[in-house]
């Protein structure tokens, strides 16, 4: 049987990628002074930490401290997502090149790229002296970062719409504004709402971390307990956080699926 050979440039590309991956990891590992032995001994060290965490510290005092902090992370994430959603929504129309002017769209996109490039934590500690230690700083950091990411995602949704409805509105005498409200928004709303929820899930993880710099949430609790070597309590913090994230993820994923699929309407 005659099996056709892979074209030569594809084979070269394949070898090139393999070499790149191998060389990249060796270069990085040697630069960081990481040896295979360290990887082999790591699991046992992690296991020591895990066993130190159990049994968890479930005393009333610990629960009373930890649960409100986890709740605070949840509220930071939600408030930040709302800020992101409210501001990114109009901006995303400016950024979409089929709705807004070409030059506008280009400038807005670049602005969004710059906003997106700052991690929440860096935003948080730059804002910290101005807005003070506490959850407000975290909320603003999460919100600003979300404007960047949601703006980019939403504008891409708007760019991908079906032009048909717009044409039919135009041909029946609708204005530009009518096109926007009856042609564009109904088409993009389900996807954009599901992106908002998706962003909320991501922000939840981000806001849990923000406490490290003192911007509110459960992160401060975890890092303090680990520093004081109070492993059972650190374990409790972890478990409560994981439970909260799992529950919120499950609910949010179910709602997203329902939004995208739409309701079955019996006629």
């Amino acid at each position: 049987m005659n099996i056709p050979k892979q074209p030569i440039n594809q084979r070269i590309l394949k070898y090139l990628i393999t070499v790149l991956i191998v060389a990249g990891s060796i270069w990085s590992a040697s630069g960081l002074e990481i040896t295979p032995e360290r990887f082999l001994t790591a699991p046992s060290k992690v296991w020591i930490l895990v066993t130190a965490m159990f049994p968890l510290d479930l005393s009333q005092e610990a629960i009373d401290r930890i649960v409100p902090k986890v709740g605070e992370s949840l509220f930071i994430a939600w408030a930040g997502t709302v800020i992101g959603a409210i501001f990114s929504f109009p901006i995303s129309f400016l950024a979409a090149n089929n709705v807004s002017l070409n030059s506008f769209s280009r400038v807005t996109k670049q602005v969004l790229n710059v906003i997106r490039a700052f991690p929440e934590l860096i935003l948080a500690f730059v804002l910290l002296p101005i807005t003070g230690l506490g959850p407000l700083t975290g909320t603003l950091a999460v919100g600003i970062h979300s404007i960047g990411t949601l703006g980019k995602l939403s504008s891409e949704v708007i760019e991908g719409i079906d032009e048909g409805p717009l044409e039919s509105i135009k041909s029946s005498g609708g204005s530009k504004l009518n096109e926007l409200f009856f042609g564009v928004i109904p088409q993009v709303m389900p996807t954009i709402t599901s992106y908002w929820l998706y962003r909320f899930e991501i922000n939840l993880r981000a806001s849990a971390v923000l406490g490290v710099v003192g911007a509110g949430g459960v992160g401060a609790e975890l890092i303090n307990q680990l520093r004081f070597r109070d492993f059972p309590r650190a374990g409790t913090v972890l478990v409560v956080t994981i439970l909260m994230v799992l529950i919120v993820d499950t609910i949010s994923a179910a709602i997203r699926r329902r939004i995208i699929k739409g309701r079955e309407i019996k006629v």
Partner: protein
Amino acid sequence: MIKVPKKPLPSLLTVIGYPFAIALTIFSFFQVGFNIEDFKRNWENRKLVTDTLFNPKWEWAIENASQALLETIQIAILASILGCFIALPLSFYASRATNQTTVTYLIYKSFLNFIRTIPDLFWAMLFTVAVGLGPFAGVLALVMFSMAIMGKLLSETIDSIDLGPLEAAKASGAKHNQAVFTSALPQILPNFTAYFLYIFELCIRASVILGLVGAGGVGRIIETQRIFLRFDRISPIIVLILVAVITIEQFSVWLRRKIL
């Protein structure tokens, strides 16, 4: 006469969902505590930030941070490669299309879901305690991070592959593993490459902040300067990071277009 169908009643989701969302929003903003008095008082502090932030000390940053920035990039490279290649076999076990055994499917799936719930910096904190401060902890943290994302993305891609080739391989006598290797793997390789580049970008971004908890990279320098409010030293580092991130992003976008 055109018969216009009646507008259906609002669904349960809208009836409960909207009021709930609005209530949660109001409650959250109260909890977060926007206090105008505090805000006014702190607003005076803005000079602390603005005076130094826009007065970057470039020489200092290049002298002290370039080594750490390189470390950051190395952490991201090593971690994303390891994480993604560990996730590759795992995701075949965590997909319905290539794993018919319910028990193992559920185990792998929930394992991937579990590691996804822990934020990247939490992993970093845990690993710094377990294996000591330094970049090795950062690498391990990002391995978990990239493994979780790759596992989720890839197992969902495998769920939607064309099952025809798999069946054909099995019909001609291939074992399950052989069938997966020859007919499922080639279908997802382009996606794998695209996801890998995407995760590499995420890792570069994430590795910047690892140093805040002592897990190596440029974050270490940011952390020490941040405590002393030396934003004049931090801002050039941030610009350097931005340049690195955007360059790598552009490169990966170019490569993705080339491959797909």
